[in-house]
């Protein structure tokens, strides 16, 4: 099964110059905990609800001034829409992430795949394994489903 068959396709993308408040509103609309950050149609980072809460609202921070570029995780892990789901689940476990952006062959962002998406497969072992892998250490990115 390919990632393209289970990923979430319609996604909001934040721009690096968006304020944290704007990014938070995008997240509220989509009910997602993570937003890809795009510049010129390319993926340059990811920002999570945790990034926004912690960097936006801890004392001294102003979420109407702080921009996404300041808090996003710039190095981007991703997978391709034609990748096999099982392989991607293992990869996510190794990378310690719960979501991965999905690119097509032209390296354009086409979706996001999450452990939740993977768990809806008939063979749910992949998600269990991946979740165990992700839970075994504290996550590097705060891309938490919780």
């Amino acid at each position, binding site marked *: 099964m390919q990632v393209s068959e289970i990923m979430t396709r319609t996604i909001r993308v934040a721009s690096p110059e968006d304020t944290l408040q704007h990014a938070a509103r995008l997240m509220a609309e989509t009910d997602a905990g993570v937003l890809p950050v795009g510049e010129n149609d390319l993926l340059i980072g990811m920002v999570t609800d945790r990034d926004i809460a912690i960097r936006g609202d801890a*004392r001294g921070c102003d979420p109407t001034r702080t921009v996404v570029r300041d808090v996003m995780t710039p190095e981007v892990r991703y997978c391709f829409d034609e990748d096999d789901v099982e392989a991607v689940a293992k990869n996510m476990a190794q990378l310690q992430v719960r979501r991965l952006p999905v690119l097509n062959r032209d390296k354009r962002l086409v979706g996001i795949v999450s452990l939740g998406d993977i768990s809806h497969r008939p063979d749910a072992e992949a998600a269990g394994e991946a979740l165990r892998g992700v839970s075994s250490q504290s996550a590097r990115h705060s891309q938490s489903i919780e």
Partner: protein
Amino acid sequence: MLCHDLMKTAVRCVPPEATVEDAAAIMRDEGIGFLPVCDARRHVLGTITDRDIAIRVVAAGESPAQALRKFMTREVVACRPGDDLDYAQELMSQERVSRIMCIDESGELQGVISLSDLANIEGKRASATLRDVSDREVRP
């Protein structure tokens, strides 16, 4: 297996009059994304997560100098430490939550069990709960 065998007991709590800023700072400093909101007797009044802060405070343009009491989730999903883990997991699936509070007869918080904790004991079982919990997420 019983809940008290698995639950995390060293759980950081915050009082309801603590501010959103306080909670965000604790989450940042301790590397956590979740806090039970408790009174002086460790009775759970609600919960707050990093996501709650992002959505209910930052997105809404609310001041983070306000008390958690205003923004916390008041519905608390709980079980007893002596309950079977299966029961706790069933409840988490039904209520679509990724954490459950373990509260004793006197109403005191004794521990917390999360989906990640369940995953560490049996991958297959956690997948089912994960599926139920993630159904709560809106799919565009």
